[in-house]
């Protein structure tokens, strides 16, 4: 299962890098969203995906899934949500000011 998850993460990273390298600001934002998905999955995978109950003590199970990476991911999800939301507004604002979302045209003039 870890093998499959790692390959999935690899695909996510590849696609998000590709999106980050394109010229459209919107695609760059989408790339960032996908990249954070990849990071979260990788966090979960690297802690091991052995069988076990969900980390709830009420389950009375012999073994539980590792709770620490889950807590870390939860923090990461919220933070990346905040950043993405800000980024979206920033993209909106940029478009309002400059009437373009093409990064080629947003580079500024040569003498700057």
């Amino acid at each position, binding site marked *: 299962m870890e093998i499959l998850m790692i390959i999935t993460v690899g695909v996510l990273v590849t696609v998000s890098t590709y999106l980050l390298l394109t010229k459209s600001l919107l695609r760059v934002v989408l790339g960032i969203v996908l990249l954070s998905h990849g990071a979260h999955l990788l966090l979960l*995978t690297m802690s091991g995906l052995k069988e076990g109950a969900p980390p*709830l003590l009420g389950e009375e199970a012999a073994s539980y899934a590792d709770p620490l990476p889950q807590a870390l991911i939860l923090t990461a999800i919220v933070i990346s*949500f905040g950043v993405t939301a800000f980024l979206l507004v920033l993209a909106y604002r940029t478009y309002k000011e400059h009437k373009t979302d093409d990064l080629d045209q947003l580079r500024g003039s040569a003498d700057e």
Partner: protein
Amino acid sequence: MSTLHYLVLAPFALAILIPFVYRWFRHIHTGWFVLPLPLVLFVYLFTQYLPFGGEFKTAAESVAWIPSIGVNFDIYLDGLSLLFALLITGIGTLVVLYSIYYIANKKDEPLNNFYVYLLMFMGAMLGVVLSDNLIVIYVFWEITSLSSALLIAYWFHKEKSRYGAQKSMLITVAGGFAMLAGFSLLYIMTGTFSIQAIIEQAGSIMTHSLFIPAMLLVLLGAFTKSAQFPFHIWLPDAMEAPTPVSAYLHSATMVKAGIYLVARFTPVFAGTPEWFWILTSFGLMTLIWGSISAVRQKDLKGILAFSTISQLGLIMSLLGLGSAAVLYNVENVDMLYATAIIAAVFHLINHATFKGSLFMVVGIIDHETGTRDIRKLGGLMTIMPITFTISLIGIASMAGLPPFNGFLSKEMFFTGVLNATTIDFFNVSTWGILFPIVAWIASVFTFVYCMIMFFRTFTGKHQPEKLEKEAHEAPMGLLISPIVLASLVVIFGLFPNILSYSIIEPTVQSILPNYTDEFYVNIYHWHGLNTELFMTVAVVLFGALVFLNLKRWQEATFFLKERDPLNRLYDGGLDGLVAGSQRVTNLQLTGLLRDYFAYMMVFMILLLGWTIFRFDAIAFDFVNVATVSPYLWVITLVLIASVISVPFISNRIGAIIVVGVIGFIIALLFVVLRAPDLALTQLLVETVMVVLFLLCFYHLPELKKEKFTPRFKLTNLVISIGVGLVVTLTAFSAHAMRHDIGVESISQFFIEASKPLAGGYNMVNVILVDFRGLDTLLEVLVLAVAALGVVTMIKLKMKGGEDV
């Protein structure tokens, strides 16, 4: 702190006071307040340390500065230091006196600047020659470079002054840096910054592999400062400085700092043939280049600048020739070569006297006629008789005519080069014959430019119409300093031995400390009908012949151009450096986000890929993996498929929906992987995100079908696949080697302690708010900041009317 420390620091202290003095006493020329200081210092050194028939006493004083790294303000005064200190203070006094009359216009000139810079220079120069610690010497050395540049650019509104200052700064500071590197190498070899301690170890470091690099670097510093070929090009451009500055810095003191350094390090480095060869060949090259270039000049200061370069080359080559005395530590033989060192020291004093007076004379001519161009001057002999007399003495001494002191040192120079032909190491026996020939040719040209300077200025027809002012004799105040220097020229010429016992002997003793034989310097005017005398006679005859035919061969193109051809190399190099860096910058700083991101990614791929390859870190672990349930297969494959489809979607709503689907599948994955809290959060966040996307995209333009060249797409594809591969490989290897480390997860603690310690059943939530509550606190802060940012960005009006 000893008196000698205060002596070095006194000029700096006075420099701090000068601006106040300048402001408080507007009606008195500021120079009068400066004048006593060098005079007092000179008198102090003269009476306290100069031996009158007795033994020379060396003084060594130390004050801790940064003792932890061996940097102390150590003063060491021996013959060599005393000679330079006397030159600095003595000529300093005369120059200050001269400058009072030269820059007489109190209102227009920023005199406070002038004297602050001059005092800074004086203190730094005293520091260079009196310090024993390499780092302290370097500090003072750089202050001389700095104050010299400030003084050259004194009239900073002139383009040429700024150019000259920048050039001298760049060249001398580059040399200073090289010197610092050389000093560091010496420290590595010896473990001390003290020159005297290094000299004691001189024998043992000779075979060290860093010995030659250290020597070359120190010499680079000395050559740039002392304007040796090919670093001499800054000196002619430094002539834009006020004439007192040229007289002080660029003839008598600063340009001799390199000479001082070479003389100071002779006991350390002179045991090798490399030292002999570098010094002698560069010195002779500078000598002949300077003397030939001086003939081409039309500006009196230009002639003097190249003359200075040439004479510095002479002194440098003499120091090189004299280093043979260290190599040959055989009785009676070393005295033969030590003559060159004596000649170097003697000529150093002579040059300071006559060149100082000549610069001052040129300043007077400039001051009284308004020009320094020899094509406009002429027939000043009867108009300015005193100036004429001083010039005659100075020029005759410079040309090497009896009975002036230049004659004596030139004879000794010829003796030195003739002796060098008898040296028999490192092919000197074959090439040695070149030394006297080069020296003789250079002397001929020296004679020629001296004649040009003299006859073009003082004889011929007076051309008042070409002059800006009506020429007349200078005021007495301007004449005092050159008269003093010219009388010294005559005195040293007639009675050279008053110098030899008092100062030349202790100086030679400190340049050649291992020189055990008792020796007495005796300088005679007449030493029989020897080769040197015939050489001088030939110089005079041949020089006169060349001068008389000047018209004929001065037409040659080489002599038409005034500027040194090496300047083209410097200017081109500087321009090329600017243009080159501009090109490199434009090449990498494209202004495109994509390019910078690509640099980072490519660097990451190379670094990680190389590391993985280098340490053979690839590992796969197919054993310790959990089994994959069939529905997980389906979920994952759908996820992969939808992820891959994202770049191909050109419809913005489609893209949002697919990205939303990906988010929800991830939430589903969390469910399958037994992370209920994660699944919940992911679902919520994804929902809000999709809403946000939709809100935002409503205002944004339609995703354009991007028209990229296939090459652009291909590089992007290669980079992203590279990144994906590196991440995948790293993850595989990390996963496979996870158990090799032998450190178990700490999660068992959370599982066990969740209920008894925190009283919670949901371990994830207990970790978030109890065990690691700080993370959560700050994460809340992040959200708050993001929210504030969002509000600000939406409400903020960039152009006026802020309503936030």
